[in-house]
């Protein structure tokens, strides 16, 4: 893979999608307001859960806020990259414009995963970071190099798992054509990621760890922040992320063999 070429193309993707989005100023403004209101609403909801009892699943409100912060960052990443691109796959396949992507001398997964960005998602990422910094302060977390590296590794793994799940569902469009509902179900499951895994029953914990690994997406990075993490969990998250990325790639290449293109 020619890295220089891919960087150059990505720079162009950034440029063109920013320019496209900035054509519609009001839309961006509405998105920004929605992001702020959504964060305020989520924190309010979380505070209601903690009103009667100071603890949920062994987590204090201040600690649970870390999960909310990580969720907000991941949701921001979802809205910046995954949502505009991966929902477009469905459109590409239904309308047959995937033809143009497949005939370009560039990796098709790279193209359809990164072509667009939604700038309003950046605000959500920033809000998530501010909330995370606030949590670091109120939970009196001591910043160290190992802490920062582990946080970065676990959050990166979360991004990989989230991307793979989404990409996997979008890819099934090649057979099923319409998969909007499946994507909506995934999004609803992701909302669960705002709460500590321990707050669920044992069977749900197993479900959200094994079948839809929401647990890996927010809880493990949050445990790293709180110094509660165990090495085996971090290693497991790295393995799960690697398996997910590899599988989604293989699945995409396999699915393309069945692509029949839309009729003209």
């Amino acid at each position, binding site marked *: 893979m*020619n890295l220089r*070429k891919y960087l*150059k*193309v990505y*720079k*162009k*993707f950034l*440029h*063109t999608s920013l*320019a*496209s989005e900035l*054509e*519609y100023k009001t839309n961006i403004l509405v998105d920004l307001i929605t992001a702020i209101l959504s964060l305020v609403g989520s924190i309010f909801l979380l505070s209601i859960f903690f009103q009667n009892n100071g603890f949920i699943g062994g987590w204090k409100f201040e600690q649970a806020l870390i999960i909310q912060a990580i969720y907000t960052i991941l949701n921001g990443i979802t809205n910046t990259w995954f949502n505009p691109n991966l929902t477009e796959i469905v459109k590409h396949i239904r*309308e*047959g*414009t995937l*033809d*143009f992507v*497949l*005939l*370009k*001398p*560039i990796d098709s997964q790279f193209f359809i995963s990164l072509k667009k960005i939604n700038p309003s998602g950046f605000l959500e990422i920033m809000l998530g970071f501010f909330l995370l910094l606030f949590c670091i302060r109120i939970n009196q977390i001591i910043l160290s190099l190992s802490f920062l590296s582990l946080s970065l590794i676990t959050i990166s793994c979360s991004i990989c798992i989230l991307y793979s799940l989404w990409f996997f569902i979008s890819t099934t469009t090649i057979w099923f054509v319409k998969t909007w509902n499946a994507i909506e179900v995934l999004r609803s499951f992701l909302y669960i990621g705002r709460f500590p895994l321990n707050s669920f029953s044992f069977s749900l914990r197993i479900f959200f760890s094994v079948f839809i690994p929401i647990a890996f997406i927010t809880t493990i990075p949050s445990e790293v922040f709180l110094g509660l993490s165990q090495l085996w969990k971090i290693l497991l998250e790295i393995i799960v992320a690697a398996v997910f990325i590899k599988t989604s790639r293989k699945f995409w290449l396999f699915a393309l*063999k069945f*692509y*029949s*293109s839309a*009729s*003209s």
Partner: protein
Amino acid sequence: MVQNIIDVRNLSKSFDISSKEPGLKGTIKHFFRRQTKSIKVIKDISFEIKEGEIVGFLGANGAGKTTILKMLCGLIYPSEGSILVSGYLPYRRKENFLKNITLIMGQKQQLIWDLPPIESFYLNASIYDLDKFEAKKRIKKLSEMLEIDEELFIPVRKLSLGQRMKSELLAALIHEPNILFLDEPTLGLDINAQRNLRKFLQKYNKETNATICLTSHYMKDITSLCKRVICVHEGAISYDGKLDLLLKKLSPVKEILIVCRSEEEAIKLENSCFTVKNRIKNEITIKIEKNSITSSLKTILNNFDIEDLYINEPPIDEVIGKVLIKKDYDI
């Protein structure tokens, strides 16, 4: 000797297609137990195309023209048989193969809708690894050939269909491919825009010796661009050869409208040995075989009192229309 750039041998393609009975009962049945059957849409076809050739694919809707084109450019895997395009197996979509080809579809677009076409051109240039200077040079050259200038800087959504198609062509040709696959490129364009596009393709072919495979329902596209046509009927090739020969085969006669000086003269002509189509007073239309037209006209002018005459070719659409419904042509 000119090399074969496309070589297709015993190519077939089948699709699994589901069918549904009408009505609510049919819909429920279709939802729970979908019945699919395998349909062979391309049936054991073979042909070669030489470098620099412009070949038109003719056929009715659903005959399989677009499926052939999509297999040639590597979008669809063939079910049986082999395809070699420029020495590559298309469905592997190797980088060097993709740099050699382009696909233009009249009904689909790749330009970024909210931005001026120039942004899409530079994006494509980066995908094809062209530096800014080279990209600029090619955009200038192609925009001159296509006669577009200000349109490059107007958002695509504000361009007319003709301007958009020209921009689509520029975006598709920025990497200077030597094989062009065009699927109904003039669809929906007005007569002038169609003519300009054809002029451009002729010029591009002449200047670059690019091979062009074209499907179109506008017969003017085929007659003005293609010397060779491949007729596809229900997934099989019904004719592969020169367009001239096909036209001669399909319409071996010309119609001649003769205006006689008197009605009596027209009746006299009607009773002679020519095949008469109709007669209205002193005007008579007769059919003459193309290869005996000179001698027949000489006989008419020498033996009858003629005021005027008009030689008409049968309308090309009518002639080609026969291709779409016929299975075999033995030329």
